[in-house]
């Protein structure tokens, strides 16, 4: 299984929190900007791609046990969100690229969505 670290390197992502758990394996991928949907649709050990950067993202990622979260289109978490991510052990990865582009690249790496 591919690790968060390999994804960070291949997609040139900026890891901004909980960078010590980058060896974590990624089981699958999920993309949505509606957190209510993520709570229903994403699975443990998935990587979640979103342009939301609100602090609730951390709670959702922690609740589900996601491997990492990629925030797209240059959206950056504020300090409160970063602090929460650090304390909850949630890995946040940033990119200026769009969700579409990132999802495409992840697919090429063999990371599939839930059927």
């Amino acid at each position, binding site marked *: 299984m591919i690790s968060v670290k390999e994804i960070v390197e291949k997609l040139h992502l900026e890891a901004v929190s909980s960078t010590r758990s980058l060896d974590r394996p990624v089981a699958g991928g999920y993309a949505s*900007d*509606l*957190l*209510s949907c*993520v*709570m229903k649709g994403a699975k443990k050990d998935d990587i979640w791609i979103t342009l*939301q*950067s*609100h*602090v*609730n993202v951390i*709670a*959702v990622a922690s609740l589900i046990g996601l491997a990492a979260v990629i925030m797209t289109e240059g959206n950056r978490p*504020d300090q*409160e969100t970063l602090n929460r991510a650090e304390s909850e052990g949630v890995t946040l990865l940033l990119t200026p690229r769009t969700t579409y582009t990132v999802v495409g690249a992840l697919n090429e790496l063999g990371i599939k969505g839930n059927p």
Partner: protein
Amino acid sequence: MIPPLIMEQARRLGLSMIAITDHNTCDNVEAVIEASEGTGVHVLPGMELQSREEVHLLCLFDTVLQCHEWQEVVSRKLPPLSNKEEIFGAQFVVDATGEFVGAEERLLAASADMGLEEVVAEVHSRGGMVIPAHVDRPSFSLLANLGFVPESLDVEALEVTRQFTPMTGLERWPQLKSWCLIVDGDAHRLHEMQNRTLFKIAAPRVEEIHLALKGEQGRAVVVDWPGPSQIS
């Protein structure tokens, strides 16, 4: 929804306070306030702001000046897109009689580049108040977009749609049990105006509404909840 008809409908419904909250603008507020003169209906100037998270937030103020100053902040945070009337509808500005004054050409159906908490803090600093709008809606709402109410959110109440019933709503979102909920019309048409939220307050002012939502100093808010068969 032109100002004289809004006032007529408010009178029919027995409303003594309404708020004008157009999407990301308050350009029609003064016209409705003017139309309300002599009617006994108080008009709160306001706006329904769409935040960066695409969450709709009611921003209410005491004065038109406060509201316009807020609009200036919001305007700078909107994307520079033009409205497309055939898709988003015309964005009319009218006078107190409902006569056409102009049309806003900038697209108002967009998100202001401000985070939820940033909006709340800014509106508070200007003497206004924020109530997250129609939180039970499947889109543009706090619960749909952000999953749950953030624990540190500095607001006193949440607005639910007129279709919301405590029986099913509180079961689906148990978190709402600890919140003061109010029902507004979110009226885009006259017949959608509601008269189901009663504020027991000394004056139609933001400060008083705050007290009512918190249930302090003898102020209170009472909502008329429908039974399952009475939803319109």
